[in-house]
């Protein structure tokens, strides 16, 4: 898919994505095969080939591959943990969409803000939340990035500019506009990147937020993770028009980028972020990707709404990790040994994350009423359930004392 830019005045030039990836030897590549590959430890620099591809140095290319591999392994771990009941509730896996987490978030500054929906584990990691803290949150533990109160759909860490993790489809879009409003109000030069699923563009909040962003020229990039489906509904079933036709109504430039091509995506977002930082105004990005798993852990991978063949073809031909791996190998920038090292490195991180999460204590019952209000006013009652709020508090266990527990 050639990235395109439609009506609008963005300065950001659309980047040209490479063709869909197949293994360099022409064989079809199953994503499972990626498991064979691992990466050298990031600190051990290879000197063999430092030319890189395009503007990407070998180090940067390895880092991006490793990053995506980390997301993949992390999500696989989450799936395992969910299967054995360590994780509860709704759990939406990002596998297949890693190119976008790395490609759209890694070019950002730490003080840029990211806000998104509920399929956000890897985006949270990309923005800088430690895999440990994300996994502990999925486990509902004290050391989770939301203290175990938020869970899979509500990951937050303001210290790295990750503003959640939101469960109401489209609910984060006005919030994203508001974050950008605050940046502009303060005269800052950060930007806000607001992700949403393809189904979210049919929420009224989309119109209202994009329109306000346009009239006030807010520093915000709206990114649709267009994985083709909202649960079981393909986009063409709920839209006569194409995704990139949706933002022109408000005067916001639309761009399309191939989210499975992490290099194209990275380059594109690096430039777009610069432009927005320099006053280009709000932007709309249709990032084409695919969800390799079911909608959530309770949803089968394929079913009435998409065929097994379709999913297989996508995972075979459009795996962002395989695509990059193959390009690097083809260019002689990566060998099997490096890949394997890389993989065992990220696997170790994920193993550590689950160990950490498992060891982290459940939130103390005494905290049930914490953080409902930031301020308990001097007079007046705020809670009305008639329960003794201290009664809920058991003796705190030693493991609950330190910030990282046992």
């Amino acid at each position: 898919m050639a990235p395109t830019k439609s009506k609008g005045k963005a300065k950001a030039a659309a980047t040209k994505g490479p063709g869909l990836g197949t293994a360099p030897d022409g064989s079809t590549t199953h994503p499972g095969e990626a498991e064979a590959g691992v990466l050298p430890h990031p600190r051990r620099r290879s000197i063999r080939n430092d030319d890189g591809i395009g503007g990407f140095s070998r180090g940067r290319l390895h880092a991006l591959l490793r990053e995506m591999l980390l997301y993949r392994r992390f999500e696989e771990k989450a799936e395992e943990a969910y299967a054995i009941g360590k994780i509860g509730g709704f759990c939406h896996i990002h596998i297949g969409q890693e190119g976008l987490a790395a490609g759209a978030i890694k070019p950002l500054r730490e003080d840029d803000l990211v806000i998104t929906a509920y399929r956000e584990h890897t985006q949270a990691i990309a923005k800088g939340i430690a895999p440990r803290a994300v996994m502990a949150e999925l486990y509902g533990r004290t050391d989770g990035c939301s203290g175990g109160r938020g869970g899979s759909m509500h990951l937050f860490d303001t210290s790295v500019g990750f503003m959640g993790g939101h469960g109401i489809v489209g609910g984060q879009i006005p919030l994203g506009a508001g974050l950008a409003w605050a940046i502009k109000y303060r005269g800052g030069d950060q930007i806000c990147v607001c992700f949403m699923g393809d189904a979210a563009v049919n929420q009224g909040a989309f119109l209202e937020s994009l329109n306000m962003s346009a009239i006030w020229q807010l520093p915000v990039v709206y990114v649709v993770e267009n994985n083709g489906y909202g649960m079981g509904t393909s986009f063409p079933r709920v839209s006569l028009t194409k995704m990139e036709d949706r933002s022109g109504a408000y005067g916001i430039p639309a761009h399309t980028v191939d989210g499975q091509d992490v290099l194209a995506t990275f380059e594109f977002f690096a430039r777009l972020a610069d432009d927005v930082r320099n006053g280009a105004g709000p932007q709309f990005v249709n990032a084409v990707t695919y969800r390799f798993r079911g909608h959530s852990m309770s949803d089968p991978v394929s079913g009435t709404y998409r065929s097994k063949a379709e999913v297989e073809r996508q995972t075979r031909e459009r795996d962002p990790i395989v695509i990059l791996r193959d390009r690097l190998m083809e260019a002689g920038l990566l060998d099997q040994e490096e890949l394997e090292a890389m993989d065992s490195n990220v696997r170790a991180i994920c193993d550590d994350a689950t160990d950490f999460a498992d060891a982290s204590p459940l939130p103390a019952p005494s905290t049930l009423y914490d953080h409902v209000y930031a301020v308990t006013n001097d007079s007046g009652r705020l809670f009305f359930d008639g329960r003794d709020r201290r009664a809920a508090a058991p003796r705190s266990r030693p493991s609950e004392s330190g910030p990282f527990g046992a």
Partner: protein
Amino acid sequence: MTELTYREALNAAMVQEMDRDETVFLMGEEVAEYDGAYKVSRGMLERYGARRVVDAPISELGFAGLCVGAAMAGLRPICEFMTFNFSILALDQVINNAAKMLYMTNGQINVPIVFRGPGGAALQLSAQHSQACETYYVHAPGVKLVTPATPADAKGLLAAAIRDDDPVAVMEGELLYNVKGQVPDGEYVIPLGVAERKRSGEDVSIITHGKMVHVALQAADRLSREGVEADVLDLRSIRPLDVDAILATVARTNRAVYVEEGWPFVGVGAQIVSLIQEEAFDHLDSPVIRVAQADVPMPYAKNLEQLAKPSVTGIIEACKRALYLPSGAA
């Protein structure tokens, strides 16, 4: 009688009504090709086709409003919200249009619509997906509300809701969908506004609705082992409200506990308690006690969530307080 799950019973009610009335249709997210997010509408697309079983975009305000408009023109939409949490986006259409239309038009336009879907908490769905929405639906006059707790009630009340000429909200429960029970075969309709005594006792009344009926019954069983016999009343319908049944159980036991899944502040329980004290003041030997969700957004962590939900123990304690008995293990 056949044993059905609550899910199947809802399906049976919709099929019963759609077979008999061509103006009934089902619209909602994933109701057609996906058979419903919780598979409540399984097989209905096949049976009725895409004209009458319609997948909507994720546009709650829009499709709820579209259904209200269709009802204004005399159709009888069943508007499914994937969960009632999302229907907060649609409240303007519920409150300002569905509820008020008949009045504003001086009786010219009624709105025979059903809003249905699961409400309240399931398991670890966290703050934005665990909300009991009764209060938002019944504060404004013009909307009716039923909360079936059993498969039989699910069939009978949903059928009645579809036949009713007013907007009726039917609040189900994700955790109820797999509950099994005997359901009458053939045409089955339970009139709105009739509570049901689910257990008989003389010592204390436990009044409740929806999912909490099951928790209340567990509490009543445990109380019984301690010699306390609870009268358990399932309201089934919040509006119309079976006031007679409420007053009767209070007159019988002189003590009452209201159990609800949602938050206490201006919750259904507050209304029932204040109604009881207004109309059965002299029958009360002790204050009516409310058991509700902890007054906090629902936390994700398993232990905190459990703590936040109304519990069997909480109900037992409340009954003991109502009876001036010492608290402690039941």
